[in-house]
């Protein structure tokens, strides 16, 4: 079964000519129209979506408000193969990294990559092992090997130094 990636969701109707609010989850909101026809959650229906400025979208074959309203809440998926291959060997799609098994340098299982997050100071992997969570900077030092095809990443957790706040400083 081919892996599918959630790219967006159809929102409420806009106007009487079949336009809809289009919630694009892509990096560039207009990119949702670049991957060809998108499918719904079941994979049975396909939609040719044309994003418009202002968060709106036009769906081929939908010309009136009632038809548009019936599609509200429909999630839009694309096959993973339709995403363009990365030219940079150190650049990965988040959807490829999520779900990989993490092992340390000795081959001991550390858990599964639950998500990849980035708050403006470098990406990091969130590795979940039961209730335990390990946050690892996504650098060559901490993640020396990424094998997407093999479904595993090698992680070398960096040593940690704790700088305790002095009494009274932690409350400020």
């Amino acid at each position, binding site marked *: 079964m081919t892996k599918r990636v959630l790219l967006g969701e159809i929102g409420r109707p806009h106007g009487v000519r079949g336009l809809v609010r289009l919630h694009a989850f892509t*990096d560039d909101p207009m990119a949702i129209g670049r991957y060809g026809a998108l499918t719904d959650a079941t994979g049975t229906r396909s939609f040719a979506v044309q994003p418009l400025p202002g968060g709106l979208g036009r769906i081929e074959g939908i010309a009136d408000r009632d038809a548009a309203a019936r599609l509200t809440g429909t999630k839009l998926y694309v096959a993973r193969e339709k995403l363009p291959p990365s030219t940079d060997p150190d650049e990965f*799609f988040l959807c490829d990294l999520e779900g990989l098994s993490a092992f340390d340098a000795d081959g001991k299982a550390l858990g599964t990559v639950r998500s990849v997050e980035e708050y403006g100071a470098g990406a990091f992997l969130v590795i979940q092992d039961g209730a335990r969570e390990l946050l*690892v*900077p996504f650098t060559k030092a901490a993640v020396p090997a990424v094998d997407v095809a093999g479904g595993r990443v090698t992680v070398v957790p960096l040593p940690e*130094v704790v*700088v305790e706040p002095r009494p009274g*400083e932690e409350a400020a």
Partner: protein
Amino acid sequence: MARSVWKGPFVDGYLLNKAEVSRASGRNEIIKIWSRRSTILPQFVGLTFGVYNGKKFIPVQVTENMVGHKFGEFSPTRTFNGHSADKKAKRG
């Protein structure tokens, strides 16, 4: 209101000392800190901090562009679950 220039940037002293020790040792390590209020100084560039957000220590790799900001700006305290869609991550 802006902070007076004559005071200089605020940074917890113990943090500055620890960063200098870490830099001198040359080891690649995560320095776990609670001091979200400290300003990021040029001395911190290249180091990796774990900044506490009330629940966990968020890895913060300090780069030149971050100088002058506070550590807390890079360690959000509220959860946001976005969709991965076609987004990419680059290994630094």
